């Protein structure tokens, strides 16, 4: 066994909270535990972190808030040693802190509770909680002490009902979250980073978590708490830091600001003048092309109803994980809908048994939010990607007519001004913006009537964004209907005719865009229906 691992064990044998007391004996003033200054991190063309500063005091609960993509999770990964910053400095209790790995961060007493659960489903609760710090004698697993220590940790969380020997795969989602939290506590951390720990918890479990956080706080453990939900933040945090576009833009005591001020910090960016001018139209006379009623695809999508008319752009706002993507996927037949109806051009479609092939045939088109993962076949050529959904247009008896394919591709490329050397060039060699244009060109080539666009401008440069907006507006002018899901509020305000907000799996009524303000959208997305949540819990 490595000496490092042995050190972990030794480190964790220190009785609960003891090393804190040893280390901080004689300290009266609340001292800075973690100091982050001017952290930068770049992923390819996108600047994820662009100068973040944060001072965390001992025993402080700091809320880290910001819109999706503001860099919160990246920052957490930097602190927890999974990512290395490009430049910038971190100090832990005055000493320079440069974690080389998650293990190193753990040795320094930093624990990260991930947004996505990271448990081993095949192992027992005890084995998961004590992973990496198992009780053992000469490599021999001491199950009794393992279970005893696990029970002790579970008890501090008032969840003695979770049995240490249960397999994690047999636990419900909220219980798994609890196990994950317990794992961080079991490691005797000094700083716990919580990345949206309540996203899958019931209300009473949230309260237990808060009680636990308060307890940790009293023992001098600091917490960085990421959440979208302002009411939670108000309940638990002492102070806040707002991240916007990878920068820390505001820091202060939570009691001294209003929700409105916080939201203003989060969304407060000027709307660039990059949206095409669209003449205001009345859609009253237009016929409804797509109507969705009470569509549900558990667990994320609970209920969504809307109608979409020809020539209209309907925006859907909402936080990540609120069920926006499942909605689009359920409509397109990628996810199984459990109930609800979908009516296309007056004809009822099978909502539950839909497949993407059927939807393509019914002239729906879909652009995935995950361009690299499922949007494009990255190693195929531009031509293949664009004609993929309608090879029929350039083939006969199953034989591809390559020259016809080239001509059709060139037409699409020119109309969208995709920058590619050749139509035979692999899509992976294009820039992100041009890749996204190829994804959009596929829908145009497919000649879809209804365009389902999930984050159509995620991670692309301003120039490509303008081009994409232009194309979307043009599609609307051609009387196609567009459903646009986006996290980027200015683009929804710049493009949409109507807007609906998704919150915790429920879609609000669609209202004309002029009836919304960025603040009211944020409010609807963040506030959600707390009462609904409570009802669901009971």
């Amino acid at each position, binding site marked *: 066994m*490595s000496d490092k691992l042995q050190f972990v064990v030794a480190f964790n044998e220190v009785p609960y909270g003891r090393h804190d007391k040893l280390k901080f004996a004689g300290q009266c003033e609340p001292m800075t535990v973690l100091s982050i200054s001017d952290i930068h991190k770049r992923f390819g063309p996108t600047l994820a972190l662009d100068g973040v500063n944060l001072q965390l005091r001992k025993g402080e609960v700091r809320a880290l808030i910001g819109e999706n993509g503001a860099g919160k999770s990246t920052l957490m990964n930097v602190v927890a040693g999974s990512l290395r910053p490009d430049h910038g400095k971190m100090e832990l209790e005055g000493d320079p802190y440069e974690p080389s790995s998650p293990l190193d961060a753990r*040795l320094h007493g930093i624990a990260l509770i991930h947004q996505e659960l990271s448990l*081993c489903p*095949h192992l027992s609760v005890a084995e998961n909680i004590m*992973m*990496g710090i*198992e009780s053992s004698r000469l*490599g*021999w697993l001491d199950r009794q002490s393992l279970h005893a220590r696990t029970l002790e940790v579970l008890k501090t969380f008032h969840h003695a009902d979770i049995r240490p020997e249960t397999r994690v795969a047999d636990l419900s989602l909220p219980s798994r979250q*609890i196990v994950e939290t317990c794992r961080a506590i079991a490691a005797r951390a000094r700083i716990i980073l919580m990345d949206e720990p309540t996203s899958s918890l019931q209300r009473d479990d949230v309260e237990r978590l808060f009680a636990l956080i308060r307890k940790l706080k009293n023992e001098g453990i600091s917490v960085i708490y990421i959440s979208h939900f302002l009411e939670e933040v108000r309940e638990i945090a002492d102070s806040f830091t707002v991240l916007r576009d990878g920068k820390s833009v505001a820091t202060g005591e939570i009691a001294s600001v209003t929700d409105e001020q916080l939201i203003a910090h989060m969304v407060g960016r000027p709307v660039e003048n990059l949206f095409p001018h669209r003449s205001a139209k009345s859609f009253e006379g237009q016929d409804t092309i797509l109507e969705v009623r009470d569509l549900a695809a558990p667990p994320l999508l609970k209920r969504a109803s809307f109608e979409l008319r020809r020539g209209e752009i309907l925006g859907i706002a909402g936080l990540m994980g609120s069920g926006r993507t499942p909605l689009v996927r359920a409509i397109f037949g990628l996810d199984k809908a459990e109930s609800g109806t979908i009516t296309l051009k007056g004809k009822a479609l099978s909502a539950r048994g839909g497949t993407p092939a059927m939807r393509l045939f019914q002239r729906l088109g879909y652009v995935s939010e995950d361009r690299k993962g499922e949007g494009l076949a990255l190693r195929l050529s531009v031509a293949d990607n664009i004609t993929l959904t309608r090879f029929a247009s350039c083939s006969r008896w199953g034989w591809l007519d390559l020259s016809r394919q080239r001509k059709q591709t060139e037409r699409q490329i020119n109309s969208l001004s995709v920058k590619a050397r050749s139509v035979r060039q692999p899509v992976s060699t294009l820039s992100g913006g041009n890749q996204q244009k190829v994804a959009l060109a596929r829908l145009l080539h497919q000649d879809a009537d209804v365009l389902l666009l999930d984050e159509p401008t995620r991670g692309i440069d301003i120039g490509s964004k303008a081009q994409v907006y232009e194309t979307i507006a043009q599609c609307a002018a051609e009387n196609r209907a567009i459903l646009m899901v986006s996290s980027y509020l200015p683009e929804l305000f710049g493009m949409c005719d109507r807007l609906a907000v998704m919150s915790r799996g429920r879609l609000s009524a669609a209202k004309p865009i002029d009836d919304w303000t960025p603040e009211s959208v944020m409010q609807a997305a963040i506030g959600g229906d707390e009462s609904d949540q409570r009802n669901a819990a009971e």
Partner: protein
Amino acid sequence: MVAEAKQIPDFSFSTFLQKWLNRVGPILGLALVILIFYTLTPGHYLSTFNLRVVLGQTVIVAIGAIGMTMIIVSGGIDLSVGSVIALTGVITAVSLNAGLSPAIAVTAGILAGGSVGLVNGLVITGLTFHVLYFVLVAWIEILLFRAGFRLIPMAACLGFLLLLRFLLSFIIRRFSGRTLPRFGVVPFIATLGMLGVARGTAKWLAGEQTVNVPETWVNELIVLFPRPAWLLLAPGVWVAIILAVIAAIVLRNTVFGRRVFALGSNEVAARACGIATDRLKIWIYGLAGLLFGLAGVMQMSRLRQGDPTVAAGTELDVIAAVVIGGGSLSGGEGTIFGSMIGALIMAFLRNGCQQIGWHNYVQEIIIGAIIVIAVAVDRWRTARVAA
């Protein structure tokens, strides 16, 4: 409430039944196979003699399956088993021929298997430098051996190996900063490559012909009638049983064993919890390699010669044994006990087909079908649990 409701069935009868079924599922399969062939064959199927035959035939696949279970549970795969068996068999035979004592020859065979496994692990985790010096050491050792040196190179090489290890790591730390670029290769490809390399090395060492060995106790490892009659079963069978028991306990009751499961269940989580996943993988492949080396010794003992072309395709039998026994190729699942039953199922099938006088091709078709059916039944069972 939802949370609690889901945990109560912990004690319910259906969960109990499920657990029980999971445990005895492979045994039921084995019982079924035995029953079918018992009715089909005339008489001798369950005689002590035939049982000895079957157990003797199982030994090689069973020992291989112990190592393979560890690898598959950790989410990996090893396709080089057949070639490693040939290589280590040849090494044992060549060592015996060179006049080394049987114990040293057997140790050499086992250690050679371990080295191959170690190289597999190093290639998979991308520790290129370590691979290079291992290959260098092996090459020098083989050259020395072929040049006529015998016992001395063994000891000298071990010392040389250690020296080089420290020298290299010192140089690496001193001059190239903290981390080296790594080029990990997925287990499938890494071990597919090793399949060729090990087979070729075996042929090189054996001079492309079988190596006959002098009469020693090594040849008696899986005989039908062991020399002290009170042993009842061949020493090889006992070795396999003991190793299986040890491996089962290690997987269940040691930190190492549980980390193997953690690695296969969720590698990201394991690493986030401070488990040194790379090191763990190297250990797993190395340990499994030792077992494959032992399987090679058994193979040599059975043929009474080192044959560099033997055991082609054995890796598939070994993998099939693990999979029939409930191992999941996506990792996190599998038991030694199940794998042993899987190996027995295949041995009983082969033997039964031979007794009836069916052709070889019938066996192959049946075994192929059994693998698919076993996995399908397993998936069906787990899907029902999830629902």
